[in-house]
């Protein structure tokens, strides 16, 4: 008997499990984007603390790994951009801050859609 059907069956089970975990990851990543948006608001008001900035580096770093793993490649790439921004102390000029704000909007938009749809759009 060929092992192919068993392998195919295992892959199907894995894909189903992956979808379930992916839905949970999407909610977590939406919360991370909201957290980063709040940090950017703090920055705009001149109230971004060192702690919030450091925490934002960690949150953006988690987004890089998680979003990409669950099919949101663009969110992952933008997350890297945000990780660099906050790890440099969020000291960018107005143009850079605007780019971060636009990246956050794009990330929010992507995460409202299932990963498969985002992949088709990008």
């Amino acid at each position, binding site marked *: 008997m060929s092992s192919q059907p068993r392998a195919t069956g295992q892959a199907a089970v894995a894909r189903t499990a992956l979808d379930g975990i992916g839905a949970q990851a999407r909610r977590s990543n939406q919360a991370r984007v909201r957290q980063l948006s709040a940090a950017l608001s703090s920055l705009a008001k001149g109230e971004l603390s060192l702690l919030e900035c450091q925490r934002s580096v960690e949150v953006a770093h988690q987004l890089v*790994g998680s979003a990409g793993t669950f099919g949101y490649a663009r969110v992952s790439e933008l997350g890297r951009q945000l990780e660099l921004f906050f790890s440099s102390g969020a000291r960018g000029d107005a143009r850079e801050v605007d780019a971060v704000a636009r990246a956050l909007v794009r990330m929010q938009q992507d995460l409202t859609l299932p990963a498969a749809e985002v992949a088709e759009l990008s």
Partner: protein
Amino acid sequence: MTIAGAAAAETPTLPVRRVLVVDDDDSIREVAQMALEIVGGFVTTTASSGQQAWDIARAEVPDAVLLDVMMPGMDGPTVLSHFRSDPRTRDIPIIFLTAKILIGDPKSLDDLDIAGIIAKPFDPMKLPADVSRLLGWTS
């Protein structure tokens, strides 16, 4: 020897590989566990922090560890140094699972005494094959 016993003796049994998955991100930990168990056929244990990983490893001595680098508290490199300083865990191969950019720096790999690096994001369906390749595990 019984017929069944003779057949068993002739059929090589594959060793059950036990992998400890360490990541503070629930979803990453779960997807890695799922992939390693369902796709790879490994037995896994998980830990959500470096300290928990260290405690589990000393008790269970897994065959390998898939270790996140950037974690609050005890980070990956710190966990690695603990492993290497204890006779019970010294020889356990460790693979870093990281979104940090480390790949392409062989010197740092040598210094770290790890079996390899798997970059995040990763393809869950390919994770077991990547782990097996880095560890030289063949089916």
